[in-house]
């Protein structure tokens, strides 16, 4: 992230880049229209927020009719909960292009405000949704021959590090980091998933998607987030990520539809937040009610459009694909 020079009012993205962005938006709308997926809009400000300890909210407040003492509102980090309420209400397949917000994230690959394409497919399993995501990227970017591969999280750790990420404990993972000259590893205080994240981002991520689209599938159940746990192997979840040119582009789930399990995961994550000194988040009761009513079995995915543009145009700083990044506000 570069610092804005005084008097530099110009956008960080070139006109050509802004045109490429507009073409991507047109292309994806045509893609979904052809497939009968409905475009929807949901609130960017919500009364609750996800409990994921790795995501912190930007907070706002409304004061006015009905709320004389002001109501706390969270800028949403994803439209997921609202879209699931639409699905439970019988929307059928839906997509949305919207801004998403995260506190604490800024760098060459992060801007606190970014653009997501998120969509849900009732009746799809993770494989079908990955097929559709690959088709969308190929069609919208006009690269019909872009290679696509699928590799499991476990096979990547075995291949690159010779470690089994489903079995290795935190000490083993730390020792690997230390023995492979990851300086600072000896002083880091991380849990098992923290070590997996460090090894993934340091040793594996840069290798992913060199020649095309790489799907990483079957994430450890401890990193399931809102995905269903696999019935075949309870150590893994039906979660996938898409990488291209070493950049994490998308995260998808075969969605958890069980309200009770969802409620338990919220509570557990809030406990983890509490013990790590982070404030617990207000739980989205409306989502849980919707799930009790019945969320159809479905898969959903969120694709970062800013990063997709970076890949398409060969740019390595998010500042170059958005008109005005944090440093230019």
């Amino acid at each position, binding site marked *: 992230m570069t610092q804005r020079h005084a008097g530099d009012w110009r956008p960080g993205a070139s006109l050509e880049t802004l045109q490429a962005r507009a073409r991507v938006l047109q292309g994806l709308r045509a893609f979904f229209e052809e497939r009968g997926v409905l475009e929807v809009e949901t609130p960017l400000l919500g009364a609750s927020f996800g409990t994921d300890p790795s995501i912190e909210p930007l907070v706002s407040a409304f004061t006015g009719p009905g709320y004389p003492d002001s109501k706390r509102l969270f800028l949403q980090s994803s439209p997921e909960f609202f879209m699931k309420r639409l699905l439970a209400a019988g929307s059928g397949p839906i997509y949305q292009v919207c801004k998403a917000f995260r506190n604490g994230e800024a760098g060459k690959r992060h801007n606190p405000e970014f653009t997501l394409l998120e969509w849900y497919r009732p009746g799809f399993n993770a494989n079908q949704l990955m097929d559709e995501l690959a088709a969308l990227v190929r069609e919208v970017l006009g690269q019909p021959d872009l290679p696509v591969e699928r590799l499991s999280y476990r096979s990547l750790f075995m291949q690159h590090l010779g470690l089994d990420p489903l079995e290795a404990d935190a000490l083993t993972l730390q020792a690997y980091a230390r023995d492979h000259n990851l300086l600072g*590893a000896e002083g880091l*205080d991380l849990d098992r998933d923290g070590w997996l994240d*460090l090894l993934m981002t340091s040793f594996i991520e840069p290798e992913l998607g060199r020649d095309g689209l790489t799907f990483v599938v079957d994430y450890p159940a401890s990193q399931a987030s809102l995905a269903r746990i696999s019935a075949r192997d309870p150590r893994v979840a039906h979660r996938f990520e898409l990488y291209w040119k070493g950049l994490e582009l998308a995260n998808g789930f075969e969605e958890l539809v069980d309200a009770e399990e969802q409620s338990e995961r919220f509570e557990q994550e809030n406990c983890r937040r509490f013990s790590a000194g982070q404030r617990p988040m207000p739980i989205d009761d409306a989502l849980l009610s919707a799930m009790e009513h019945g969320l159809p079995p479905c898969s959903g995915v969120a694709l970062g459009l800013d990063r997709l543009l970076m890949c398409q145009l060969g740019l390595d700083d998010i500042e170059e694909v958005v008109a005005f990044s944090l440093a230019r506000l």
Partner: protein
Amino acid sequence: MATYNTNEFRGGLKLMLDGDPCVIIENEFVKPGKGQAFSRVKLRNLMTGRVLEKTFRSGESVEAADVMDRTLSYLYSDGEFWHFMDNESYEQYQADANAMGEATNWVKEQDSCLVTLWNGSPIAVEAPNFVVLEITETDPGLKGDTSGGGGKPATLETGAVVRVPLFVQTGEKIKVDTRTGQYVSRAKDE
């Protein structure tokens, strides 16, 4: 003890790592969409000059290094130490050969140098980019040769040896670029 949070990291910030002062060259924010955030930092160890990479967990705090750059006047060398003075406070500092590094080749009395102080002691000395020094010894070149091709070695008053064009003679003053150690031009008497 002053500390810096990873959110304060930026190029030029000075930190203590394993007992040595280091300066940040580059700071990269790394975070999987659903995972732990890290700062991946490239630093230069100011004692050894070596470049290293280190990973911090976001939000971690690191001890600040009490390091500052000051412009000081070079006074003299006693053989073991090189003595400098702050022209405003008249405070004196002594740098050892390690801190002087290449600068011993170029500095002479009254030169202004950029000196890096750690806990009040010099750990690095940067000579001015250009210095004017007198040639104390060089082979007499052929008269009338002005081509400058080839050149010859010349010993300077500081003891440094640089290549100069054949027409430059003993007793003349020349301008040298201390960053490359190369002859720039003859110097007019200043």
